[in-house]
């Protein structure tokens, strides 16, 4: 069995979406709107595969009593707590994430965990700056200087005299050299993306389909 079928599907699906972008034609446009709205359904189905993989991983750990197998129980506990309150319980009209227990778990477990992980960045950004910003070469020096000037321009650390112009310098760095290279990167990314996507719908790039055996 070759990959010809799937490649044809990718081609047709892709061409229809491109057509929708350029052409003003009722049936095509409403088809495209429909597709964009509902293709997430595939992702919703796929999550079952994800959960199966997660279960396999942790059940395996439990069975083999691997290092840290007790933590797998914690994962299952969290998972089922969310599933039971989110899928099977109702409180009046409130279901899913609006169910008070589910919402409570979200606000007091998931939200603070996420926010705290996010806030670790404040520490990591400091250690990364310390380690990486060394004036080893001209390039590294430019990196370092730009970072320090922008940081000094952000907050009032040094004030008075020459330092009063730091915010302006910061703004200039952001508006001119920073903008110039962002534009260039974006242009490159746009072209790279487009050519990769074209290769996919023309069937030149097919690695993503994996093997073609059986």
């Amino acid at each position: 069995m070759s990959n010809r079928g799937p490649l044809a599907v990718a081609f047709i699906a892709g061409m229809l979406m491109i057509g929708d972008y350029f052409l003003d034609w009722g049936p095509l446009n409403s088809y495209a709107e429909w597709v964009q709205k509902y293709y997430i359904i595939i992702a919703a189905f796929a999550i079952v595969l994800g959960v199966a993989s997660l279960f396999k991983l942790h059940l395996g750990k439990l069975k083999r009593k691997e290092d840290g197998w007790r933590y797998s129980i914690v994962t299952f506990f969290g998972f089922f707590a969310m599933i039971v309150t989110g899928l099977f319980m109702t409180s009046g009209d409130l279901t899913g994430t609006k169910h008070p227990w589910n919402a409570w778990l979200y606000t007091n477990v998931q939200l603070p965990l996420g926010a705290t992980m996010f806030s670790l960045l404040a520490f990591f950004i400091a250690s990364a700056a310390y380690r990486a910003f060394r004036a080893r070469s001209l390039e590294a020096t430019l990196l370092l200087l730009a970072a320090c000037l922008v940081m000094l321009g952000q907050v009032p650390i040094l004030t008075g005299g020459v330092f009063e112009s730091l915010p302006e310098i910061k703004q200039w760095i952001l508006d001119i050299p920073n903008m110039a290279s962002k534009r260039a990167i974006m242009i490159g990314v746009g072209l790279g993306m487009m050519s990769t996507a074209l290769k996919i719908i023309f069937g030149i790039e097919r690695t993503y389909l994996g093997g073609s055996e059986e």
Partner: protein
Amino acid sequence: MNIWDKLQSIDRRWIFLVMFIVIIIPLMNPKSLDINVSEPTRKAFERIENVPSGSNVLISWDFDPGSQAELLPTAKAMLHQLFEKNVNIVVITLWPAAPTLADTTLNEISTLYNKQEGVDWVNLGFKPGLDIVVKSMGSDIHEIFPADDKGKRVENIPLMKDIRNYDDFNLVIDLSAGSSVDFYVEQAHGAYGADLVAAATGVMIGDFYPYLEANQLQGLVGALVGAAEYEKLMEKAYGLEPDKATAGMQAQAKAHLAIIIFIVLGNIGFFAKRKKTSPKLESLNK
């Protein structure tokens, strides 16, 4: 390992510890901050100063606890200012998770000024629909918000009796963690001619400066810096004590300074080491 090597390889845990300390201390002990108030913040403050006593202001509370570090201080300072000036406040929100935060804050500050819910202020709560909500308030607020956050019918709220649309507000304030400022500029200001002041997070602020230049916004308070500036203005005008934004800004300044000092230390070590070791030796060491 000599001192220069050590300067180049400080264990990252020491850096973490220093960051921890320099951020916590100002938070526990905020002092009046010496900062220059920027033009957009001053404009916002002055526009609110010019709201006549007894008139109405609409606040669109478009942020949830996720962005409260940046926006709540501004919100609080503005509420203090408005209550101080005896202005009536109507609060709505376009964000589902915002009403509780708005309610807690309103209750906390209104009691300080003996202001009554329903008479001096009201929280109409959340309505989904973003720009559509903003647009519909141009014709009839009662229709889109038939009841307040607690389910009380608007007909029975004394404050809401004479308020029907944007014409009945002296000013509209959008406290936004997203792009709702766009809708207000387009609809409330563009289509219905309402005066507009906004506060936004650091990520979004850049998008909104053009509105200020085009006079579509009467003032703009940006991120934690803007909030700290606002607290400074409130301190000068009403003797309000500096609060969380000021504390936050001090923590920011100290943390930035700490990072820069670490960068400098690393570079001192790097250069001192390079001078001392001749190139030959260095290659042998490898």
